[in-house]
C-alpha cells in the first residue's frame, strides 16, 4: 500500500484528506467522529472575534441541485461562521488535538479587517495546540456584507495586509483561503504570497442561487418568503476549482506557493486530479455532508491503489504532475488532427451522436435507414461532442491522424507541431514576419 502520509507546509497528517472548514467541523463531537473515521486533518469551522457569537437563520440554510435519482450535484449554503462561543470552541479544539496528535488541526479565522482584531484572536488561539491557521477570505454571504470573508478576498491589498498581520503576530503556519468570486484568481494568490502566506486554499464557495420556487417565486433556500444568494459547493463546482488551482500552480509568481485544493472533491479520483494540478492536499465538505465521514475510507484505498499502480511511493510523486501540461490556447498544436470513430459493435443505435452533430454541430455523422451511424471524415472537425453525448463508454473515440496523413475535411497533410502564434491567420504572427 502506497504511503499516503502528507506533509503540507510542515503540517503532518496520515493522509492528504482534510475536512474543510464548514458545518462538519463545527464541534468537538463531529471532529472526533471524523478522526475516528480516518480523516487526516480538519480545518475547524471558522471562529470569529471574542464577544457575542454570530447568529444563523432559523429556517433552511441549504439549497441543492440534483442529478438523476436525487444525486446531490451541488449544495449552497447561507450558514455563517460558528455561532458558538469562542471559548467553547477553543476548549474543544485543545481537547481534540490533545487526543489526536497525529492529525492535522487547523483553525479557520474570520475577524474584522483591523490589526487589533487579528492580533487578539491569534493570541487567544495560541495555546490550543492547533497546527496552523486558515484565513477565511472566502465566504460570500452574510459576513461579506460586514466587510469580512469574500469582501476581503476580493481586494488583493487587504489580503496582503491581513496576511502580514497574521505572520507578524503568530508563528503558526498560515493558509489563506481564496474566494472564486473574482475575475483572476492569481491576483489574490500573489497578494497572499506577498503577505507571507505559507499556502493558499481554494476554492471557497461560489455565489449562487440554486433554484427558484415557482409557486412562491422566491429563491431557495427560502426564509419567510425571501431568499439570499449562498455559497455553492459540491461536484458541480469542481471544474471551476480545478482551473483556479491550475492557474495558480502554473503562474510563475505563485508556482512555489503550496495549495490546498478544495471544491467538489467527492472521490479519490477527484482528489488525485486536484493533486496532479498542484494541490499538496485536498479539503472535503459536501461529499461528507452528503454521505457521512465514512467516504474517507474509499478515498484512502482508492488513492493508495492508484499510486501503487503508477509506482508512486509518496504523494509528492503525484503533486503537480499535470501542471506542465496546462497551457494557453495559443500554444495548442493546430496540426494535431483527430477524427471521430464509432465502434459498430459497441454502438447501441440511440442516435444521440447524430442528433447532436446534425442539429448543433457540423453534420458529420451519417445515419442509415437501419440505424447505422458513421462518421463523415470530410465534415468532422473533431469537436468531440459525439463522444461526450454517447451513453456508451469508448463507443466513439477520437483517432489521431498520423503525420503525413491527409485530413479529409481540409485536404491538408498533417504536419509537425504548429500553433496559433505562428499561424498565417494570426495578425500578430504576420506582423512579426
Amino acid at each position, binding site marked *: 500500500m502506497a504511503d499516503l502520509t502528507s506533509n503540507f507546509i510542515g503540517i503532518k497528517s496520515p493522509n492528504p484528506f482534510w475536512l474543510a472548514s464548514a458545518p462538519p467541523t463545527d464541534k468537538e463531537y463531529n471532529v472526533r467522529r471524523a478522526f475516528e473515521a480516518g480523516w487526516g486533518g480538519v480545518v475547524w469551522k471558522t471562529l470569529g472575534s471574542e464577544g457575542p457569537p454570530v447568529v444563523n437563520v432559523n429556517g433552511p440554510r441549504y439549497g441543492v441541485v440534483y442529478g*438523476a*435519482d*436525487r444525486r446531490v450535484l451541488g449544495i449552497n449554503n447561507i450558514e455563517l461562521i460558528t455561532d458558538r462561543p469562542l471559548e467553547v470552541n477553543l476548549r474543544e479544539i485543545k481537547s481534540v488535538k490533545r487526543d489526536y496528535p497525529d492529525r492535522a488541526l487547523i483553525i479557520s479565522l474570520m475577524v474584522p479587517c483591523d490589526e487589533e482584531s487579528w492580533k487578539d484572536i491569534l493570541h487567544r488561539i495560541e495555546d490550543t495546540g492547533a497546527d496552523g491557521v486558515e484565513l477565511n477570505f472566502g465566504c460570500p454571504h452574510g459576513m461579506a456584507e460586514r466587510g469580512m470573508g469574500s469582501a476581503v478576498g476580493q481586494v488583493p491589498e487587504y489580503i496582503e495586509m491581513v496576511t502580514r498581520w497574521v505572520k507578524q503576530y503568530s508563528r503558526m503556519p498560515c493558509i489563506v483561503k481564496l474566494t472564486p468570486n473574482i475575475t483572476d484568481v492569481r491576483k489574490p494568490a500573489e497578494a497572499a504570497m506577498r503577505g507571507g502566506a505559507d499556502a493558499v486554499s481554494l476554492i471557497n464557495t461560489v455565489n449562487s442561487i440554486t433554484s427558484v420556487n415557482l409557486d412562491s417565486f422566491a429563491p431557495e433556500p427560502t426564509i419567510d418568503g425571501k431568499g439570499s444568494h449562498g455559497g455553492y459547493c459540491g461536484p458541480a463546482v469542481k471544474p471551476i476549482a480545478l482551473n483556479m488551482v491550475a492557474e495558480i500552480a502554473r503562474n510563475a509568481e505563485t508556482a512555489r506557493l503550496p495549495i490546498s485544493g478544495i471544491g467538489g472533491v467527492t472521490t479519490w479520483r477527484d482528489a488525485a486530479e486536484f493533486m496532479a494540478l498542484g494541490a499538496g492536499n485536498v479539503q472535503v465538505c459536501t461529499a461528507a455532508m452528503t454521505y457521512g465521514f465514512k467516504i474517507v475510507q474509499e478515498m484512502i484505498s482508492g488513492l493508495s491503489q492508484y499510486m501503487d499502480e503508477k509506482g508512486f511511493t509518496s504523494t509528492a510523486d503525484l503533486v503537480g504532475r499535470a501542471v506542465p501540461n496546462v497551457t494557453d490556447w495559443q500554444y495548442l498544436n493546430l496540426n494535431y488532427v483527430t477524427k471521430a470513430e464509432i465502434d459498430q459493435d459497441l454502438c*447501441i*443505435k*440511440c*442516435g*444521440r451522436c*447524430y*442528433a447532436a452533430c446534425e442539429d448543433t454541430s457540423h453534420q458529420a455523422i451519417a*445515419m442509415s435507414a437501419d*440505424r447505422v451511424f458513421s462518421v463523415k471524415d470530410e465534415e468532422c472537425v473533431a469537436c468531440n461532442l459525439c463522444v461526450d453525448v454517447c*451513453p*456508451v463508454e469508448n463507443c466513439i473515440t477520437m483517432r489521431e491522424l498520423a503525420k503525413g496523413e491527409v485530413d479529409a475535411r481540409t485536404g491538408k497533410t498533417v504536419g509537425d507541431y504548429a500553433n496559433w502564434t505562428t499561424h498565417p491567420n494570426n495578425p500578430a504572427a504576420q506582423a512579426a514576419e
Partner: protein
Amino acid sequence: MTNSQLTPGIAAGRLGAEDYARNFDDIAPRYDGHEARVAADRCYFCHDAPCMTACPTSIDIPLFIRQIATGTPEAAAKTIFSQNILGGMCARVCPTEQLCEEVCVREVAEGKPVEIGRLQRFATDTLMEKGVHPFARASATGKRIAVVGAGPAGLSAAHRLAMKGHDVTIFDPRPKAGGLNEYGIASYKTPGGFAQAEVDWLLKIGGIAVQNGKALGSGLTLEGLKADHDAVVLAIGLAGVNALRAEGEDLKNVLSAVDFIAELRQQPDKAKLPIGRDVVVIGGGMTAVDAAVQSKLLGAENVTIVYRRGQERMSASSHEQEHAASVGVRIIHNAAPVRVVGNGAAQEVEFAYTEDSADGLKQKDETFRLKADQVMKAIGQTLTGAPEGLKIEGGKIAVTGTGRTSVTGVWAAGDCASGGEDLTVTAVAEGRDAAEDIHASLS
C-alpha cells in the same frame, strides 16, 4: 374454509380471503413519483427512437418520458393520449417486451430496457385520476357515424371521430362497453374497475352515445346502419372460438377460456368462482396464459398448459410464459389433444406428442393423459357475425391500410379486420386511423 386446493372436482372457495386478495391484486403497481423519475432518467432520448417505431400507435415515447422526468406527467399523458386514447389500458396490457421495450436501446445494450409501459401508466393514471379530459371537440360537423363494437378499436375510432366534431353512436351486444378490456384480459392486470373508469373518462369528450345490447343480427343490419349514418365502423372483434376437433369436446366442463376469463372479470368476489382441482388449458397464446394463471390463482392444485408446437412458436410472450411458470403453471409443448375422456363430464384429456416438421405438424404414436376437472380451450378465436357482402380475407374482414372495407362507407378495425396483430394497441391504432380516414372522406 371448507374447501382447499385438494378438494376433488370443481369447487369454489379453495383459498382464504387474503389469498384471493393478494392473487388478484395489481400485478405491477403504479410507480410512485420518485420511482417514475428514476426510471425516466434512464431514457436516452434517442433520435428517431426505435421504441416509437415499434409502437403500433407511434406514441412519442422519448418525449413523454422526458415530460415525466421534468415533473409534468400530465403533459406526458397528453402526448400519449394524442396517439392512443386507450394509453391507460395499453400501459397495463401491452406486451411491451415484444414491442417498445424489446427495441429499447438499453435492452439491446444491457438487457434492461427503460420501463416504458410502467412509465406510461404513471403518466396516464396521473392525468385520468384528475378526472379531466385533455381534448376538446371540434365544432360540430353534423355528420353521424355508427360504430359497431365498444372494444378498443371501436372506442378509439369513436373518440377520434367525436373529437373531429362528428356525432357517434356505438352499438355493443354486452351490458358494458369496453370489449376485451372489460371481458378479456387477466383481472390482475387491470384491477379496481379500471376498464369502466377508462370508458367513462374517454366518453367525456362528448358526442358519443353508447347503446348496449345491440349487435348486427340482433336488432341491427349493416344496411340499416348505412342508411342512418354517414359512415359505419365495424369493430366487432372475433366472437367465435375455435373447436378442438377432438373426441369428447362436448363433455361437460370443457369450456372456452375466453368465457372463463370473462366470467372471472365480472365476478368481484373471486371466492365464489368454482375451479377444478386439475385444470388443463389447451393453446399457446395470451388467452391460454391468462386462463391458466387465473385458474392457479383461484386455487386449482394442478394447472397445465398444453401447446401443440414448440415453445418458440407460442404467441404468448416469454414474459407471460415466465409469469405462468412463476405461479406454478406447467407448460407442456409439442402435444395435441386426441380426446377428452369422461363419463358425462371431463375427467382426463389424452394427448399425442407431436413433431413440427417442414411438412407440417404430425402426431406421434405415443400418448399421455392429464387429469382434468376442467378443460379450457384457448386455441384461437374466429370472426363470426360479419355482415353479408363484405370481402373476407384470411378469415377476417378485408381492409385497406386505413380500414376501408370492400363496401363504400364501411370501415373495419381491430381484431375483426385484416392486417396487424390481435393486440389492444393495434386495435386502437386501427380504430384511430379509420376515424381519420372517415373524417378526411367526409370533409
